[in-house]
Structures are given as C-alpha cells and as structure tokens.
C-alpha cells in the first residue's frame, strides 16, 4: 500500500545489517553537509543512485518517481531564493524596476539556489537509500540500540502496525464513496471528506475497544516488549 515500505522489504540490500546502512546513510549525509561543496553533493547523489538502482535493484523509473515526491517543495522553495530585491541594477542578471527598487534574478541567487539544489538532492538520496533498503522494523531495532526511550519505541511499533490497518480502512471507504459519486462535485466532496474523517475516528475508538480485550486475553503486563 505504501510503496516505499514495500520496497524496503523486497529490495536486494534488505539482508545487510541495518546498523551499517543507518550509519552509512547518516554519516554520508552529515559529511556532505559539513563539507558543503556541490561537487561532493553530486558524488553522494551518484553513489546513492548506483547503490539504490544497482545494489538494491529498485527500478530506475521507480526511483526517479520517488525523487519527484519532494520536488514540489524544492521547486516552490527555490523561487524566493532566485528572486531578490536591490537598489542597483548591476547585481542583477535580469530585473524589473518597481518604483525605486529593482526586483529580479541575481547571480548570487542562482549560485545559492544551485548549491541548495545539490545539497537537497544529495541529502534526500541518503534518506532514500536508508528508507528503501531498511524496513521500519529494522530501523526500530537501530533506534532501540541508541537508547531512545522505551515508550517511544513501543508507540512506534504499535503505530507502524495500526497505520496499515487504518490506511486500508481509509482507502476502502474512499473507494466506496467514490463509487457512490461522493467526489463528483465540490459540495459532495466536502460532505464525503468530513464523513470519512468522522467514520474513521469512530472506527479508531471501536478498534481500541476490541484491542483491549485481546490485549488482556494475551496476558498483557503493561509493556510491549521487543
């Protein structure tokens, strides 16, 4: 259902130690950010690209699709960097005059934007390496070894399980609404969305009731051990 999660279980690097993968990804990301050079960022991106597509055997077209997920933010966030104000025209490559101010694209802006683009792509590629090759259940073990509070671990483990249950319920309800033309126009869409949220909320509470019984039946003693 969540495609990144799916790949994290079926990729070819799944069997390697999650600890190694975790330190590799975080280490590479931090190293790049500290050195802050766009050639290094480029190299990191390429290394991860090869590891993900050749090592983990994630199809190239799928990986490119994944890279598009954060693209909208990247695109929107770049605009303010590229555009800037100034009192003189000299610093601008292209500008328009508004009263006594100039507004346009500066060389510095382009440089800044390019560096940011490289940094973001290199960092996101490290994250992708980690999340596409290491399933959540392995990551939890890594967190556990780093002495993250036990309560956090417990909640993460439970949440991970419940997310898929609720997500399935959620998708089914949306399909059922769609089949009854629930999203045919804006008015019905609003009605559908709000009833969907309410329905899901009630389901959450009902589920809690049922889970309490089965928890007790299984001899729960207060802790969700790992």
């Amino acid at each position: 259902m969540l495609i990144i999660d799916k790949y994290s279980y079926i990729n070819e690097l799944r069997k390697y130690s999650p600890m190694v993968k975790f330190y590799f990804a975080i280490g590479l990301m931090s190293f790049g950010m500290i050195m802050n050079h766009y050639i290094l960022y480029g190299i990191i991106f390429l290394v991860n690209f090869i590891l993900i597509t050749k090592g983990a055997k994630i199809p190239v077209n799928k990986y490119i699709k994944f890279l598009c997920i954060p693209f909208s933010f990247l695109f929107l966030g770049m605009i303010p960097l590229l555009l800037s104000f100034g009192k003189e025209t000299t610093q601008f490559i292209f500008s328009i005059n508004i009263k006594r101010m100039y507004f346009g694209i500066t060389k510095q802006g382009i440089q800044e934007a390019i560096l940011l683009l490289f940094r973001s792509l290199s960092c996101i590629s490290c994250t992708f390496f980690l999340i596409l090759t290491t399933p959540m259940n392995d990551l939890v073990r890594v967190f556990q070894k780093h002495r993250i509070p036990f309560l956090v671990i417990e909640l993460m483990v439970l949440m991970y399980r419940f997310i898929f249950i609720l997500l399935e319920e959620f998708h089914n309800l949306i399909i059922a609404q769609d089949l009854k033309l629930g999203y045919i126009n804006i008015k019905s869409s609003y009605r559908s969305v709000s009833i969907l949220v309410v329905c899901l909320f009630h389901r959450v509470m009902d589920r809690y009731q049922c889970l309490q019984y089965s928890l007790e039946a299984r001899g729960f003693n207060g802790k969700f051990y790992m």
Partner: protein
Amino acid sequence: MKRKKWVVFLLMGTLFMITPRITFAMHIMEGYLSPKWCLFWGIIAFPFVLKGMINIKHIVKEQPKKKMLLALVGAFVFVLSALKLPSVTGSCSHPTGVGLGSILFGPSVMSFLGVLVLLFQAILLAHGGITTLGANTFSMAIVGPIVAYFAFHGMKKANIKKDYCVFVAAALGDLVTYMVTATQLALAYPDSSLGFWGALGKFMSIFAITQIPLAIVEGIITVMVYNFLLEC
C-alpha cells in the same frame, strides 16, 4: 440560509482558482536547512516534545493500555495527513489536521505524537526529512497546535458560537503552521540586500498566502467533522 451557503461556496471557488496547483508536501524537505539551523530547531523543539512525553508517561503509567489508544491516534493523524482535500482546480492539498487533533487531544499530546507522525512521514512517504525533523516539529506539532488550542478555548470562553471557534482554530492552526515554516526558511535564507524581512516577505507570499484558501477549506471541513462527531 441556502443562498448563504452558495455565496460561501462561490467565494471558496474563486479563492481556489488563484491557488497554485502544487500545494502538497509542504514540510521542509531533507537538506533544505544547513546543519546549524537543523540543530537550532531541534533544540528549540526538544523541551516541548519532552513535556508532551512526560505527560503521556503519566497517563500510561496508570493505564498501560492507553499506549494502544495513543498509537491509534498517531496512526489516525498520519492517515489524515495522507488525505487529499478536493478543490475546484482538480488539484489536491493535504490538511495539516493540526486544528482537529489539538481540539480533540490537546496540544501536549499532539507535540509528542506529532514528532512520531513526522518521522513516519519521512520514512514511509519521503515527506519532510530526518535532518529537518526539528524544524517541522516546531511548526506542525508545536506552534500550530498551541495556537489552535488557545484560539479554540479563548473563543469558547468568550461565548462565541462553537462553529466559529472550531473554524478559526482549524484555519488558524493551518495558517500559522505555514507562517512558521516561512519564517524558518527566511531565517535560513535571508535576502541579499533586504535581509531577513525581505526574505520573509518572499517566503510568506509563497508558503503562507497561497495557503489561505486551503486553510479556509480545512476550517470548513473541521467544522463539519466536529458537528458530525457531536451528533453521534
């Protein structure tokens, strides 16, 4: 009454037209902030999250089964954030769920669960990021919920009609979240000649102003949800 509704819908429609099509995944992405700012926002967010965690620890100490409820609520918020709010232009936006969550569960629970939700979003959806977790937590899980919570309860105390309280809380929670995001970006990338304020203007116009119609949508839907919840 019916006519009034149509006026509202018409207004909404026009607002939608001017909203850009790309309006989802507004968490600050991986690598967007320099290490300095990552750390800074992490440190700022930490005490709030810790407070939330201590509160929750008290609850689950008395009733360990409540852990399940918290995890269910966390999963619920995660799933809501994957919800697509429909709009006229055919584009979609994701609600923050900040207002609803804050009204239903209180801001301190939200700040702690919020971190977990953001972490899951980074790991399972590649929305946001690990390095920017602190910054995103501060905007989505701390400031947004607190503003929504106080807006709701402040207005309720002033005997304002419930619907308006809910609407303002949800819309404001959404809007403030993105205003904080814009501020965070402006701090990290000040304008070369106009400095922070210049940058704030630029980022606000992209990350906050375009969010106004979406905040209104979220407000309306939250009101509908709230009323349905009261009904049953």
